[in-house]
């Protein structure tokens, strides 16, 4: 019983203490804001380091975010649930001579793979699609586009790529089998050849041969000069083979049932390809199986170097900013020594004074953070206007991160002066003039 009684008293005291702490906190914020208002120029100048730091960290984050998003958008052409059977792996290799003499990938493999997939129960693979490509010029009337990526494939191609015809349609199964002279063209190609009319059912000239346009793909946008659907045309493989027999690059792409089981699908496809190639067990693979992810990781070094540069600038300016804020807080403590003495005489505890100056330095840093964020936001808008193709991403996460960084900087830089203030002898402080 006495124990319980004591506990309840302690609880009450703790409650009172908590309340007092909150009131002191509120009071400290008011003082800090009043202090900044009274010394607006000084405060802003002091916060400059923090401002630059926050601008750097935000722009860096935005750039990295933008690059990732832009890249992902481009990569969507490849599809994240598609495996690519190729001669060369999608990465930089040191032993290129091991790959040079590999047999080329033939478009016929697709049919063989499809038959095997059909016979495999619970296969992780859906369908194999052959692709062959060359670069050619396309003409219509007086207009011409050079270096267009011409793709020969089957009508199954649409399941492996993000094709979305804004006009017309992709070529049909019938056209695919019959090797009809039809073509689906990308947005930029359509734009260049048909500036003022609909391309549908018009005939374009490729390699001296006429092809009827059956569809136009929607605009996809290019990013960092990466491959884009916009400058590409696709036609049935039969037609392609008929007119572009000279040394095309051929791949086979295979759609996967469940993209979370990509590794299993890869193993299965490797097995099938070994059967296609008739490899003995002791022989190593003479083909490569690739996925979108491989491309993504080639971008990591770029992102990393932006991050390192950004973090360096951020760190440096925050460091300089922190020293400036520490200095100004020391000045503030000095200027208000008498006030500190008065507050102590009125019952302020050490903690109260410590809190007050910590909050002042934190408020300064937050001010810097807000100004920095606003700058960064405006700059992002500007960049977005100037380079519409660069996807700008100003995220909530960045705002939160900047605020946390600001608060941390404030607490760290304010600690030494705040501590000094809290330890001042009240009488000495009161006598200070």
């Amino acid at each position, binding site marked *: 019983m006495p124990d319980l009684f004591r506990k309840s008293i302690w609880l009450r005291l703790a409650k009172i203490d908590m309340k007092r702490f909150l*009131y002191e906190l*509120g009071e400290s914020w008011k003082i800090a804001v009043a202090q900044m208002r009274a010394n607006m120029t000084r405060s802003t100048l002091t916060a400059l380091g923090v401002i630059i730091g926050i601008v750097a960290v935000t722009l860096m984050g935005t750039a990295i975010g933008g690059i990732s998003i832009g890249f992902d958008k481009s990569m969507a052409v490849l599809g994240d649930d598609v495996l690519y059977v190729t001669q060369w792996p999608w990465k930089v290799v040191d032993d290129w001579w091991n790959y040079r003499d590999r047999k080329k990938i033939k478009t016929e493999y697709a049919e063989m793979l499809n038959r095997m997939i059909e016979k495999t129960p619970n296969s992780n693979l859906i369908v194999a699609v052959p692709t062959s490509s060359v670069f050619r010029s396309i003409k219509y009337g007086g207009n011409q586009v050079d270096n267009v990526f011409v793709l020969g494939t089957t009508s199954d191609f649409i399941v492996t790529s993000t094709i979305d015809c804004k006009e017309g349609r992709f070529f049909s199964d019938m056209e695919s089998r019959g090797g009809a002279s039809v073509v689906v063209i990308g947005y930029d190609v359509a734009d260049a050849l048909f500036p003022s009319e609909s391309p549908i059912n018009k005939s374009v000239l490729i390699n001296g041969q006429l092809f009827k346009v059956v569809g136009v793909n929607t605009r996809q946008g290019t990013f960092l000069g990466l491959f884009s659907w916009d400058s590409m045309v696709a036609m049935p493989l039969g037609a392609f083979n008929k007119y572009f027999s000279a040394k095309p690059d051929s791949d086979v792409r295979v759609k996967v049932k469940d993209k979370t089981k990509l590794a299993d699908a890869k193993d299965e496809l490797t097995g099938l390809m070994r059967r296609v190639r008739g490899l003995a067990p002791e022989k190593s693979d003479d083909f490569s199986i690739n996925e979108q992810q491989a491309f993504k990781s080639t971008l990591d070094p770029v992102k990393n170097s932006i991050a390192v540069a950004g973090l360096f600038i951020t760190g440096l300016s925050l460091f300089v900013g922190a020293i400036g804020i520490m200095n100004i807080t020391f000045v503030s403590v000095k200027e208000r020594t008498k006030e500190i003495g*008065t507050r102590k*005489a009125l019952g302020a*505890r*050490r903690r109260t004074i410590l809190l007050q100056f910590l909050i002042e330095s934190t408020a300064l840093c937050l001010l810097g953070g807000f100004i920095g964020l606003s700058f960064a936001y405006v700059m992002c808008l500007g960049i977005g206007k100037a380079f519409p193709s660069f996807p700008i991403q100003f995220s909530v996460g960045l705002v939160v991160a900047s605020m946390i960084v600001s608060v941390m900087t404030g607490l760290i830089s304010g600690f030494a002066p705040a501590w000094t203030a809290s330890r001042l002898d009240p009488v000495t402080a009161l006598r200070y003039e």
Partner: protein
Amino acid sequence: METRDLTRPRGPIVIDIENITKDYVMGEETVRALRGVSLKIHRNEYIAIMGPSGSGKSTLMNMLGCLDTPTSGRYEFNGKNVAEMNDDELAAIRNREIGFVFQTFNLLPRSTSLRNVELPLIYAGIDPETREQRAAEVLADVGLGDRIHHKPNELSGGQRQRVAVARALVNRPSIILADEPTGNLDSKTGEEIMALFEDLYQRGNTIILVTHERDIAAHARRTVHLRDGLIESDHAGFIPEIDMATVG
């Protein structure tokens, strides 16, 4: 040596110091600001501490107000030994039991009268509504009911000192310590502040007043003279005409 004000019954002892000394070490030199001072002060006394400049008045005052600790000697405040208290406990005593009034007012320049008076209540953990209400009440009591939203630079010297007095009173302390409260005021405004103290005394407050002006000290009921860090005299200062006027 001690005598008492015969017009009132004695309250309990609030301040009891015995043989207090205070040395200030300044490099090679040691200044002996207090050299063995003993004093007992009861509730609802009105004491003036007098003495020439440098005699140790402020040092003694700071000691009594728990702002400073003695080099040697014993100090009991309300029966508790001050030497045994830690920093936070001393802050709590200053907050609740003692009200300071300074010669230079020491108001926060950017805060209104109301905010200035609220300050001790914030440190006491009083909620905002009660705080504001009590601060406004006390300001009205000292005759500044219409000045609560004025900042110090919008007030006269006498009004500023009234705000300071209100701030000293707002937490209902057991004693009020005023170190030359009229030192920065002309004699007319000084008298107004003294009338305020008289009123507080009549309402039961304990007042300790440091001054070197005779006519200010004349308001007190007991006068302690300091010289060179020692008590020279301690006697009841009973001035009939003022007493008759106020006690009626």
